[in-house]
């Protein structure tokens, strides 16, 4: 693989939000004492009159955001995913999703890649929590470039959006002209033996896995499922129909996230072989992101191994 530029998704989020705030005065940003981590600090610096810190009070922040939305603003609310989707879940349910309030939940530090902070801070259930709510759109960008597009897409959607952003500095994988249409998955690579449907940081891992499989003569189709809700049913069924085997890969619990969404789509509609790579029914722990990905099987090598097994048992 060629050398790729490295860029942080959260910095991309913060800078894009600040830029968007310059063009659209309806945008306000909120944080719960983590603006230097979620990168809403860029917005705060450029638009101090439209930035609000709520202190460490996520529930109040989410409700206040609903209040802003009711007054015609487009609030972007940021904190760590584990606190935003977890602690403020019922506020999101009743004050945002239930009323279809135009609130953007841009939560960062999702998944295991928070690393050393450990299991208390590693959100592995946030997609499940947000995906189950009516009216909610769920976007999971795979790199900084896609994050920028997701920020713009979220602002353009009239209704609640969960934007799942991760912490590490990652290779920029997609191009500025790669389309990003919410609800429409991107096929990054074609192949007829197995479909690798991935989201977030597992997209580059799936691409690397496809390379490994190609060396063994196994053709892998790679699908970037950047929108978890509404899920691209057609892309899933097409991949299943073409390959006869589907493997999902996500930095999230195998319950309730991408794997579940794809399984829900395939059930009763496809006879394709199916398996999930993700975090099994367990919490995370401290470690470097790389060590954690290795320990929990979130690697190209494991994706390739699982795909190989699927193809073998077709």
């Amino acid at each position, binding site marked *: 693989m060629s050398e790729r530029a490295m860029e942080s998704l959260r910095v991309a989020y913060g800078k894009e939000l600040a830029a968007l705030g310059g063009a659209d005065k309806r945008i306000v940003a909120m944080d719960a004492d983590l603006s230097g981590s979620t990168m809403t600090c860029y917005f705060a610096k450029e638009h101090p009159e439209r930035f609000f810190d709520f202190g460490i009070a996520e529930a109040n922040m989410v409700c206040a955001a609903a209040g802003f939305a*009711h007054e015609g603003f487009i609030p972007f609310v940021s904190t760590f995913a584990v606190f935003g989707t977890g602690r403020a879940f019922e506020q999101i349910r009743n004050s945002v999703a239930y009323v279809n309030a135009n609130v953007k939940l841009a939560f960062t530090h999702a998944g295991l890649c928070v690393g050393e902070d450990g299991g208390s801070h590693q959100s592995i259930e946030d997609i499940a929590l947000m995906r189950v709510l009516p009216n909610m759109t769920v976007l999971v960008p795979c790199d900084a470039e896609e994050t920028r597009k997701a920020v713009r897409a979220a602002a353009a959607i009239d209704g609640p959006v969960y934007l799942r952003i991760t912490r590490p500095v990652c290779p920029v994988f997609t191009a500025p002209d790669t389309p990003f249409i919410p609800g429409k998955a991107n096929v990054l690579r074609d192949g007829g033996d197995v479909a690798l449907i991935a989201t977030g940081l597992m997209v580059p891992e799936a691409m690397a896995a496809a390379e490994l499989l190609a060396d063994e003569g196994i053709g892998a189709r790679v699908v970037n499922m950047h929108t978890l809700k509404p899920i691209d049913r057609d892309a899933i069924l097409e991949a299943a129909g073409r390959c006869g085997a589907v493997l999902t890969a996500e930095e999230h619990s195998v319950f309730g996230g991408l794997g579940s969404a794809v399984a829900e789509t395939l059930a009763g509609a496809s006879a394709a072989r199916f398996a999930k790579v993700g975090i099994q029914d367990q919490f995370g722990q401290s470690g470097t992101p790389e060590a954690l990905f290795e320990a929990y099987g979130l690697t190209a090598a494991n994706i390739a191994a699982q795909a190989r097994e699927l193809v073998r048992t077709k």
Partner: protein
Amino acid sequence: MESANQSLAEKSRLLRADIIRMLYLAKSGHPGGSLSCLEMLMALYYREMKVDPANPHWEQRDRFVLSKGHACPAQYAILADLGYFPREELWRLRRLGAMLQGHPDMRKTPGVDVNSGSLGQGVAIAGGMAMAAKVKGEDHRVFAVIGDGESQEGLVWEAAMSAAHYKLDNLTVLLDHNGLQIDGSNDQVMSLGDVMKKFEAFGFVCTRVADGHDIDAILEALHTPHPGRPLFVCCETVKGYGVSYMEDEAGWHGKAPNRQEYEQAMKELGVSADE
């Protein structure tokens, strides 16, 4: 001197009858808290707030948030009386497809500014609306009515902290202090302590209305100057006020009257039980 608001006393009797009839017909709902906060809502809707029933989304209107959303029959009765929607809707409360939901729904009911019902959230949303008004440079005000049981929610105090921090002098929080909640008295269930002192400590200008069913007294309290700070008005009320057997009875928090109880209530209120 006669109060200009004495005519509202007559209206309050009829609104109470509407509340009782709504709940009787719905066969469920919350009479106790609806009856205790009625005069607070009347003071706001009939005297204090700038609203236009013909234009519920009028941008310059004052906003109202019934944070103790289960008391919505009181709000619905007033909204119908003001002409936000036909009175007939009252008798379909809580039915499938009804405009009037079991808890306030801004997407279904004209005049409802904010969804509430999950306690603590309404007052926090009200804070966001007051902040938004300041960002827009608009001078309308935001009023939120909270319950005393509701004030056990931590979110109420998160909202109080940020309202003071952001100097929301366009926000008024009124407490329906009837002293009772589902499981008994506040003091039995979870004592609020000195709620006035608590709001004062959080940075509100605080005032108490000794008789929360006296509309003149509520209005006087609402006019307490509070430059640079949000206002807290503690209204001492009686749960179930106006229906003898419901008064001060925690058991009437969340149940509807049966036929016999309905007829007695209507008799006490001097309104025919037949419609």
